[in-house]
């Protein structure tokens, strides 16, 4: 939805909104594995998502005299997702507006888009950091706790996700007769900080995306590679790190691993995004200040706690 303070700027405002919605943003990976919630019009500040809890397996034979067998209650779990408003506003230099309005406003809209989307990406991770079950990597050799991430730690969390019945997020790729490629297994996702890259390159069996049989990454260019027994890694600067948090006082990296779409978030766009452009009032000496603002509504919740974990590790990265 677009709001303008003056009707004659409706078209310009629409254009700026489309710029913000369409701006490609780098390394903003969290929404890829989120169930996207569409913010209804006049939705209030909570979106209710529901989930039916699983039933126990039917393993009890029906006894004579009890022809109805097992009776259980199907519970519909309501998961409210609080939605908050986030804004970013820019005041523009009127002199530039007069000289080259559209390029200047477009650049401003691009910057706003990056700001809003980065914020949304960070908010996803904050929700995951606070709610996802943590696992401290423990099989590394750096003497710290958590240790650096190793193949054994990945095996551990892969098993935990399988126990949690998490579906794979990414289908595998068959091998092809191309030199230096190897097949990619069905995989869970892993959203990591860039600082994990040195550790990943040391994980036994890790292969970068350039060694995939199919080169066009269906989930964006931020994918860095895959590691056995079945994780594909996307890296970003937005994934939180914790200073002084390891036993030896080193930086701890959070890496969110999961399957399916274990969390949800409000989709940026539609009712969840507004652009406000306040044009200059040339007839008013006090009204020459121009502003452009973006308003975004966002909220995120974990939907299936057994399908997403936070692997904490220390890094071998040194500045």
């Amino acid at each position, binding site marked *: 939805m677009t709001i303008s303070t003056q009707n004659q700027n409706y078209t310009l405002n629409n254009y700026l909104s489309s710029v913000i919605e369409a701006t490609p943003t780098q390394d903003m990976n969290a929404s890829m594995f989120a169930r996207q919630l569409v913010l209804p019009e006049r939705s209030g500040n909570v979106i209710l998502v529901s989930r039916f809890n699983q039933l126990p397996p039917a393993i009890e034979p029906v006894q004579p005299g009890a022809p109805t067998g097992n009776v259980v209650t199907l519970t519909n779990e309501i998961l409210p997702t609080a939605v*908050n408003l986030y804004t970013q506003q820019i005041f523009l230099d009127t002199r530039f507006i007069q000289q080259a309005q559209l390029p200047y406003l477009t650049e401003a809209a691009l910057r706003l888009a990056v700001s809003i989307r980065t914020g949304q990406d960070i908010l996803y991770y904050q929700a995951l950091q606070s709610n996802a079950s943590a696992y401290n990597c423990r099989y590394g050799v750096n003497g710290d706790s958590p240790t650096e991430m190793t193949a054994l730690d990945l095996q551990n969390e892969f098993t935990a996700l399988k126990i*949690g019945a998490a579906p794979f997020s990414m289908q595998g790729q068959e091998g092809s007769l191309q030199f230096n490629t190897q097949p990619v297994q069905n995989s869970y996702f892993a959203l990591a900080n860039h600082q994990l890259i040195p550790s990943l390159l040391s994980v036994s069996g890790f292969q970068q995306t350039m060694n995939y049989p199919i080169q066009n990454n269906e989930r964006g260019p931020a994918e860095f590679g895959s590691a056995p027994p079945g994780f594909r890694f996307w890296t970003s600067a937005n994934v939180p790190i914790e200073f002084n*948090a390891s036993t030896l006082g080193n930086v701890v990296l959070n890496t969110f691993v999961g399957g399916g779409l274990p969390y949800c978030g409000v989709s940026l766009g539609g009712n969840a995004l507004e652009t406000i452009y306040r044009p200059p009032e040339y007839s008013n000496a006090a009204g020459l200040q121009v502003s452009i603002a973006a308003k975004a509504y966002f909220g995120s919740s974990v939907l299936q706690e057994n399908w997403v974990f936070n692997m904490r590790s220390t890094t071998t990265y040194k500045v």
Partner: protein
Amino acid sequence: MSTVPTTANLQGITQNQNDTLIITTTGSPLLIPLQQVYTSVTLINPSTYGTSPPSPTMIQAYWNNYMSAGSALLLENVSSSTTVQSLSVSTGGISIYNTAYPSIYPVQTTGTTITAANPAVASIPSANTLFSNGQVVRLTNVVGAPQLNGYLFTISNVTGTSFTIPYLDASGFAAGATSFHAQVVQPPTIVTFPSANLITKIIMGTSTTIQFAFTHNFFVGLAPGGGSGQVFLTIPSEYGAQGLNKTQYGSSEAWTITAVNQALPNSITINANSSGVLPFAFPSAAVWTTNKPTPPQATPYGQTPYNYQNASLANAQWILSLGSSVCGVASGTLYAELKGAGSILTYPATVPN
């Protein structure tokens, strides 16, 4: 720091505004994130009006920024009477402080000992100014009791040379710590409501009680906005209590919370008959050093009626601090009348502090 379960959303309010904040109290000192600075605060405890509690209980408290931080003017009842008495406190009262330019790198304090007692008490260098009651600290570099590494603890009874870890019963430890590092945790480590928490004690029985390391915000049953109180437990084998990691068939299941803060302070009771489950205990120092297990934890299971960023401590520039004299009781309610900036004048004029 735990997120304060306020029912008011302070997002978006503007400077110079007067606001009413409805506060759900925990019985412990509170840090409440604000979105603007206020110059005076009036606290009203509605449950005390017209009643005669056996011990003096706060009725009203007042503070403005001309008064010293942490002080308050109090009205409270006389014991077992509705008669009102007044007093002035210099500590444990109210303050609003600015978090502008918070340390981008957490400041670590080197401590000397943590006792193997219930509750554990930590000794820190004299002239401590970093810690205050109700804060959450992370322990690292713990020597002598490495099992405490990585834990986040709410602290209390902070003095210049020590603080208590009220939710840690370390009496079963072979030895206390002989040195450690402590740092105040900067959110957003724990900004959702409820958030995951670390387990320090489990009492087995026909129902199971779980005590947490830092002030929890789990709840029973349906809460405002929906959601039921359930938790999912992750307990490494080094800590025992393996039956509570429920994976008999299919995927793990969550336990329902039946009570909070009942059998133990800062605890939940769940509907798990753990009579036959091996007891919960911290691993020995040797086992921890060898295996480096993740601290046992409880994660909220489908219960997120409030979400993060509801004016979180992480982002707030201004924090309202309610000390022990004015923080109310567990699960109580306080009304805070917050008066906006710029409205306190003096005659003759002086420079505001």
